[in-house]
């Protein structure tokens, strides 16, 4: 879907991206993570053809952003980290304008407005002025504006910033439902814990370079034993549908690529084999540890 090759971008006083190479798959949610100032927003803006590369290329669906920026614009929706709305217009008019400005035929606008407002839960606010909405509702309206023309690609820069936990959960659900409908999403975020809930891949950006990344296929599990047992690594290695990340006599980290039933069978097998299992569950720290490990590695490589 997106091919980025040797991408360099410069601001007058700094080089923001140093030869980035990246492939972003279609119909998946890719998370861009990295420290502040790493180049995530710049990379998103280049993907959106809102900036022109200094060197290299960004190809979206076969269209070069430098050569055909308007073709790229038509194919995507973009939510910037700091966005504005036309506060004087009602939610319905905001969405109607967005749909028409994105070239939707007049006959389809009304349906598109209904669908977009439904997907973000704003159907009961269509008559309300955008300026009167709360922070969370404004965020939803901005997302609805970005997807009202049913783009194939949605770029979201820090979409969860400033949202309360319930709104964040709603956002995760929305992103997953959009992916399930066939949309490709690229999300920049600082909130690592939530990325696992909806992302399929993570790409770490640091100092304008790709510093690492991983694919989230299946749940990452953590297993701890009350009494160390040397058989544990071999036992886990023989199990079907598991990918061992790390294991020793007292604990293990692994990826279970199948669903809840497979996890239940694994737990049953561990207990059946007389392992003194004291902890068995999703490994919430795995992503964070991976992130910092890859970031440190990238820092060492730079030095």
């Amino acid at each position, binding site marked *: 879907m997106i091919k980025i090759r040797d991408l360099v971008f*410069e*601001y*007058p*006083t*700094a*080089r923001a991206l140093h030869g980035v190479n990246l492939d972003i798959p279609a119909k998946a949610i890719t998370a861009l993570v990295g420290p502040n100032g790493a180049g995530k927003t710049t990379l998103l803006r280049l993907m*959106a*053809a*809102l900036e*022109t590369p*200094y060197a290299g290329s960004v190809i979206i669906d076969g269209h070069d*952003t430098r050569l055909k*920026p*308007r073709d790229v*614009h*038509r194919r*995507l*929706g*973009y939510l*910037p980290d*700091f*966005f*504005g*709305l*036309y*506060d*004087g*217009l009602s939610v319905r*008019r905001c969405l109607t*304008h*967005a749909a*028409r*400005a*994105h*070239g939707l035929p007049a006959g389809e606008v009304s349906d598109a407005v209904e669908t977009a407002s439904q997907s973000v839960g704003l159907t009961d606010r269509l008559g309300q002025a955008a300026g009167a909405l709360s922070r969370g509702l404004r965020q939803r309206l901005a997302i609805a*504006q970005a997807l009202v*023309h049913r783009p194939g690609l949605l770029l979201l820069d820090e979409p969860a910033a400033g949202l309360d936990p319930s709104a964040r959960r709603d956002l995760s659900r929305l992103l997953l439902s959009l992916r399930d409908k066939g949309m490709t999403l690229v999300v920049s975020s600082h909130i690592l814990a939530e990325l696992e809930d909806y992302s399929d891949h993570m790409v770490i950006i640091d*100092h304008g370079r790709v510093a690492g990344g991983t694919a989230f296929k299946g749940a990452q599990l953590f297993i701890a034993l009350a009494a160390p047992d040397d058989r544990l690594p071999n036992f886990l290695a023989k199990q079907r549908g598991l990918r061992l990340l790390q294991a020793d006599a007292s604990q293990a980290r692994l990826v279970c690529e199948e669903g809840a039933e497979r996890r239940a069978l694994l737990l049953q097998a561990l207990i059946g084999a007389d392992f003194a299992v004291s902890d068995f569950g999703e490994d919430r720290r795995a992503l964070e540890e991976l992130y910092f490990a890859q970031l440190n590695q990238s820092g060492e490589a730079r030095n």
Partner: protein
Amino acid sequence: MNPEFQRNLWLELTPARLLLMTGFVLFLIAIFSAAPPGFPSSGAVATALYYFLVVLWGTRNAALSVIAEIRERTWDFQKLSSMRPFALMWGKLLGATSFTWFGGILCLPFIVYPAWRGEGLPSAAGELAILIGQGVLAQSVSLLTSLNLIRRQHNYWRLDAFLCQVMGIVAAFSAYGFPNLLPIGPQAPFSWWGLTLQPHWFQFYSLLAFTAWALVGSTRAMRLELRSVNGPFIWLAFLAFLGLYEAGFESWFANAGGNSIGLHAAALRLAIADLAFAFSAYGMAFLEPKDPVHFRWLTGEARSGRIGRAFLALDCWMLSFGVTLLCTLVLALALWRDPQPIAGEPPAALVLPLLAALGFFTRDIALFVLGRTWSRERGDFAALAALAVLYVVLPQIAGPGRSLLLPQMTAPAISLVAAWMEAGAVWVWAVTRIERRQAEFTSL
């Protein structure tokens, strides 16, 4: 309907605002129509009100139609729309100013009716066309200026809006009023490219031509915002138009100086066109961003032998600078070869001061580039201040050393050497700063 135009109508033309404007305009005109002699007539009040609404307020709204999008962080959304640059441009131009046009249109019958009764329909229609043309030109120049200013990406939006207003107002009154400035008076026929023309027709066609160029310019500036590449040819065509338009006033220029210039008509025309090109270079060097990244990219392309690609991406100020350079050299050659004496001197005597002037001009443009490397926000104003010091303050105190600051007929060789040394020094300084900054961050 154009979505951008419709959005603006939703915001601008609310029933309450329409009622308020109608009441305000009619009330003011009614008061003056009932006023005793000695007070302005209702037609004069309507004219003043029209200029206030359409030109003064309209230029502000036209500028804010873009500047406010940046301020309110909605511009990225607009740039990602599917609208064509021309549609987005006119949607903004007519939409954002629709409320002021509504007020202006209310004034028009009170302005045109007396002309219709007094001088007939053609005169009234002409006046109407000129009033509308001035409004469109002022607003489109304001929009064009705002589209250029936002590329500089600073945060002085009030100053930007004010600058746009000034540019719009100056453009509207210059394009229409230029013949009025001539010493022949506004009513007398005058010569333009050998044609004897009535001023009011010339004013009308000038207004039309400059309005068309302002709309073309706004569309091109919008294209740049939407990340499309413009290419140099339309700007070069505008320069050709400007040069031809200004050069047509050759006979007036020759007469204005009591024929003391004594140049051949062709050389004088070239000199006038050259002056217009130089002014366009100064104007665009001030307005355009002179982005060091773009400068580095162009240098890189040129060094890699991709001259054509670099040429297609040249900024307007660079093109104006190049055309001025070329035109001045052609003029110098023409003077060098001209045997007819000017005020007892061979025309070749003008060559050195002319080349010195070119050197000072080259230095001045470099000052804008240098100013940008110093500060994105204040660099252009610093360059303007430096020019004021160089051309106004220092010559007052320099005495005989004035040749180092201005092209002088009395010491042309000194002026020439000083001008080009200064130009070289400022350019080297600017380019070194651009390249050193890049070397610093690419080595990271």
